């Protein structure tokens, strides 16, 4: 709980000054960041253009051409990354998986942020008993590893893509809630919030239009830090066979099925494993860098 106290004590920050700062610093972006951003842009383009660039339908089975080797292991150019145990093109499956994994991660990150910020604002607005309930929920989330909680919910309720995205959306909500609550409390103590309140603005307007923009940079940094964690969670659950279900495919799913062919056809598992690692690495490097630039006090 130490971090709540530290965020409460913090002075408000001006979004405008930070924006100018960011522009000024763009001239001295490290090479690693450029590579990370290019990779993420590439991933995003692949996800958006999946239907256009995919060489084959990702579910197309071609049993005559099972387990053909990829080009970098001496295979032919018809299947750049080889084929899997059913003769499905690994590149096409990889493209479909990238789209699925990014979709889930985006959806879950946004759900988590909206839920967490709302509860944080509610706690900051009402204080007292309601605040204690929110804080108890925060403690509860910290009490169980999220993977275990997710497994329990999947066991009781079964699985569907919508439920799965909502479930992953619960990840990290407590972090946003803590941050939003702390910053809203310190925002409320400042002149601008009191002035807007005195002018007769509703709480909805006060939090949505005035406090939210002031804490946006901190929230964006938290979202970039939570995003790779959700990718890793999704791939972990799908790897265990409890996340995305066939015929849909995701990066973790591919690694999970590729595990059966680790000895004879390691490329089925290596391609998605590489994408998961490099993507998570890029986003967390970017998040770290953004944090140092925008909000060095956030840990």
């Amino acid at each position, binding site marked *: 709980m130490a971090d709540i106290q530290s965020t409460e004590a913090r002075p408000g920050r001006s979004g405008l000054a930070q924006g100018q700062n960011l522009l000024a610093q763009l001239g001295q972006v490290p090479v690693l960041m450029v590579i990370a951003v290019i990779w993420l842009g590439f991933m995003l383009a692949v996800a958006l253009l999946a239907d256009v660039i995919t060489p084959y339908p990702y579910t197309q089975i071609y049993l005559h051409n099972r387990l053909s080797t990829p080009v970098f292991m001496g295979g032919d150019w018809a299947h750049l990354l080889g084929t899997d145990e059913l003769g499905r093109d690994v590149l096409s499956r990889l493209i479909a998986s990238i789209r699925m994994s990014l979709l889930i991660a985006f959806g879950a990150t946004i759900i988590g942020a909206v839920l967490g910020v709302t509860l944080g604002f509610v706690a900051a607005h009402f204080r007292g008993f309601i605040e204690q309930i929110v804080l*108890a*929920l925060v*403690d*509860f989330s*910290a*009490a*169980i*590893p*999220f*993977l*275990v*909680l997710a*497994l*329990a*919910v*999947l*066991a*009781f*309720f079964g699985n569907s893509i919508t439920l799965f995205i909502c479930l992953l959306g619960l990840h990290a909500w407590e972090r946003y809630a803590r941050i939003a609550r702390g910053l809203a409390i310190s925002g409320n103590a400042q002149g601008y919030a009191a002035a807007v309140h005195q002018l007769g603005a509703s709480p909805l307007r006060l939090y949505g239009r005035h406090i939210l923009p002031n804490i946006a940079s901190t929230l964006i940094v938290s979202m970039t830090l939570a995003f*790779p964690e959700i990718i*890793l969670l999704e*791939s*972990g659950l799908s*790897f*265990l*066979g*409890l996340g995305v279900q066939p015929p849909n495919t995701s990066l*973790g799913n591919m*690694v*999970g099925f590729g*595990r059966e062919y*680790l*000895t004879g056809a*390691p490329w089925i*598992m290596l391609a998605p*494993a590489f994408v*998961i*690692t*490099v993507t*998570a*690495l890029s986003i*967390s*490097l970017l998040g770290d860098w953004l944090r140092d630039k925008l909000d060095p006090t956030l840990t």
Partner: protein
Amino acid sequence: MLHYFGSRLLRAIVSVVMVVTFVFIVLRLSGDPAIVIMGADAPPEAVDAFRTSWGLDQPIWVQYLTFFKAIFSGDLGQSMRDGRDVVSVVLERVPSTLALTVPAFLLNVGIGIPAGVYAALHRNSAIDRFVMVMAVTGFAMPSFILAMLLVLVFSVSLGWLPSAGQDSWRHAILPIATMGFGGAALLARFTRSAMLEVLGQSYIRTASAKGLSWSAVVWRHALQNAAIPTVTIIGFMLGGLVAGAVVVESVFSWPGVGRLLVVSVANRDLAVVQAIVLMIAITMVAANLVVDVLYGLLDPKMQLQTRQARG
């Protein structure tokens, strides 16, 4: 100090109550608990017996209290698969899991903390860069991928170590290495930044300026202060270790609690899932309580408050 420990204990109790409530709510939401726990094809007289013994014909708040009583007397129902008491089904797996997590935890601390301290003391050196690269990679590479790369290298290519099972101590090496590396990377990164923060404080400059040797400054001033935030992160790491065990035991077919959880979720053996979730939650809450107590003992500010309160 007493007030601090008291409030931490209260918090831990509230967390446990909330976990039990959560399980109760989820169980009631997912359908008739008798059918859910006993399975759809259970004989009707067994279902009726279950209903009466769990008081499912009583009002909901009576059910809630009964549920609490049952949990704290260790009665969590039977496994759907073999009809055995779930508590013993889960408990017999615990030693296998501990055989992985305890050495992995020792590796985390034994590698992570020295690496982080060394990197901070030799900032921007080649070793610091190396530690940071390993730390960031350790975060970005999920344990199941690391596990499979290790299998690819040490089992498939080199043929040195077995890739699955629990027949000898050699089977434990790859799972322990997988869990040990990931946690060590996290801890190294955290220790390094905690150390750097402490080294930038003015009391370190003062200690140097008054003529203390550098090693005395590091040992007596820097390490003790950097230990405070590091102990807190170790509490969080236990959660990571549990989650890691779930994944790593599945990859290596290691018959521990984590593997049992995944298999039970896949088979919807809900009594077992419920028992494991409760056990993990209570362990985590207890571990965090221990960390909070350690934190109170380590942090001189806490002791100062106590002394002031006494004086």
